[in-house]
């Protein structure tokens, strides 16, 4: 177990390293002049040159990259124009926001977490539950409703569903306030009422995919011999379905769920844009339109970290759920 974990983490680290090199090259080496975006108005050649010096753009690429990585792990000195000393997870200085990138991220990360985690719980419960029920009640009206639901959901788009929800529940019926983020610790009620639309929209679309997948998996598992054996030896239905069948049927669902949650944590760009909530995804969009390279780079990296970590977690969960998987 420990050996597997170390091996898995090492390969995850390698992947992250490659992602960081790739995105660093993409953003700092590709554009004609990375600085042009960092000095939006009243730019004169002197100021441009100063920004170039501060960013170390005159240094060779390798030492620029090394400096960036050093900043992440040990912190580094960015110079007085960039807020001076920048502590350990230092991701650079954003000229557009006039603050350290890590401060921006610390502010917007809780927003994205508050959107994704409750939504993920909702979509997993709804999706897997619906899939199970429709597999066990195959061919009934319940099954048909569930299939219709999942087909509709899988073809709908969050920007459209979100717009319709906003229109009906917020603007027409005035049941909910205009979506916004309040910290959970300040006011749980406001936190929930401000984000519930995003949860519902995300959960509706995602659970459609999960219902479909878990229905297909459950049907396949139910036709396995060991399920029949379990029934034949006199176990009750709930025990067979809940313990024996569910466990095998749920493994592919776990893989997809891990990837989806990991991907969503990296920024629910579309959801945040639709509902006008300032999370990680919206920050990335704004950084792109401002040409704010350090912030873009940081959002790409943090999204990649979530995806890679989610993969590791999925591998570990596999071993817990599926007794046939032995970790080596």
């Amino acid at each position, binding site marked *: 177990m420990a050996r597997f974990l170390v091996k898995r983490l090492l390969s995850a680290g390698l*992947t*992250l390293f*490659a*992602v960081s090199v*790739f*995105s660093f090259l*993409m*953003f700092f080496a*590709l*554009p*004609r002049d990375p600085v*042009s975006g960092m000095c939006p108005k009243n730019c004169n050649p002197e100021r441009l040159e100063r920004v170039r010096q501060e960013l170390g753009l005159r240094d060779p690429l390798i030492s620029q990259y090394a400096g960036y990585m050093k900043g992440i792990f040990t912190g580094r000195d960015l110079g007085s124009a960039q807020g001076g000393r920048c502590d350990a997870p230092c991701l650079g200085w954003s000229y557009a926001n006039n603050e350290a990138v890590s401060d921006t991220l610390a502010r917007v990360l809780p927003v994205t977490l508050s959107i994704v985690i409750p939504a993920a719980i909702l979509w997993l419960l709804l999706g897997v539950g619906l899939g199970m029920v429709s597999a066990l009640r195959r061919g009934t009206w319940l099954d048909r409703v569930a299939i219709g639901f999942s*087909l*509709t959901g*899988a*073809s*709908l*788009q969050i*920007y*459209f569903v979100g*717009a*319709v929800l*906003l*229109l009906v529940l917020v*603007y027409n019926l005035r049941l909910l306030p205009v979506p916004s983020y309040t910290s959970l610790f300040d006011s749980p009620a406001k936190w929930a009422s401000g984000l519930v639309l995003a949860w519902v929209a995300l959960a509706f679309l995602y659970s459609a995919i999960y219902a479909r997948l878990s229905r297909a998996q459950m049907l396949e598992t139910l036709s396995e011999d060991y399920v029949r054996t379990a029934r034949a030896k006199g176990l009750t239905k709930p025990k067979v379905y809940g313990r024996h069948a569910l466990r095998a049927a749920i493994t592919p669902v776990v893989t997809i769920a891990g990837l989806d949650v990991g*991907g969503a944590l*990296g*920024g629910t*760009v*579309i959801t945040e*844009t*639709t509902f006008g909530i300032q999370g990680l*995804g919206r920050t*990335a*969009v704004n950084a*792109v*339109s401002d*040409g704010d390279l350090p912030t*873009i780079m940081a*959002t*790409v990296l943090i*999204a*990649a970290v*979530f*995806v*890679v970590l989610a*993969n590791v977690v999925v591998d570990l969960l596999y071993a817990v759920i599926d007794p046939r998987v032995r970790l080596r």
Partner: protein
Amino acid sequence: MSLSPVEGVALAEIESTGDGDGDAPKAKGFVGRSPGQLAWVRLRRDRTAMISAAMLVFFVLLAFAVPLIQALYGVGPREQFQDRLDGFGMPLGYAGGITGEHWFGLEPGLGRDIFIRMVHGLRTSLFIAFAAAVITAALGILLGTLAGYLGGWIDAVINWITDLTLAMPFLIIALALTPTVALRFYGQREAVPPAFQIGVLISIFALFGWTSTARLVRGQVIALREREFVEAARASGAGLGHMLFRQLLPNIWAPILVSFSLAVPSYITSEAALSFIGVGLTDETPSFGRMIYRSLDYLQTDPSYVFFPGITIFALVLAFNLFGDALRDALDPKSSR
């Protein structure tokens, strides 16, 4: 002479042909059919498949007929009808200004015709999606067969690149990459031509989209690699190209076809999503994503604006998904339908 089991009717399945049009079964007997023919028969019998196929044909014809429609309709996608808007820029009349001349009404603010912009958007969207799906399928097939058939370090390298690509957050990279690439070729103030934006979108989809096909093909090829017909062809001295494209590929076209038909709608939605967040196509080129983004500002004042592009994209994607599922069922040899 070919040794591969797919060519010809080697794998003739036995099926009764008696279930005709309801009258007395004629010519009771058994007919040998190739898997392709079987799949076609199953598909023809599937009502959902036929309805969704008809919808898809309709959408594709609509996209091809854009110049004709525009000539008949008499309105261009960039024409503005300011005289039909009120003082606040809202279209006059009911439901967003629907009239005999403007079937789906006008855009608030600029007063452009929604119907003709949607037809143009449909064409762009379908073009991008099909082009991206063809390119990713070709790339995925090539890399997947190479990795699966050759194995060894080539397999390891291709696998690692696949893992790496999957770890990249697609939306955020696409979001950041598109303007960067545009900046590389065009200046800060220069207008980027639509053809270039479309090219960038297709390249980004190609760069990130090949992984799923490659994974699928690799798995299938590994399963086939040790079969006798492959060994026989290899023993007869077949070259790499012959092995990959004449022996292996004909045996795995079914899952590739299914993944292709499900890839197209995913590119349609990705294009709309990228245009929605403002990095795909600009306002100049009509696009569903851009229209929905603009309509969010008018949700309270002109709610009908969001529904036309929203429902069209839903119908388009639903038709593709239904057809892809039906195709999967039809091509599945285990299916009894």
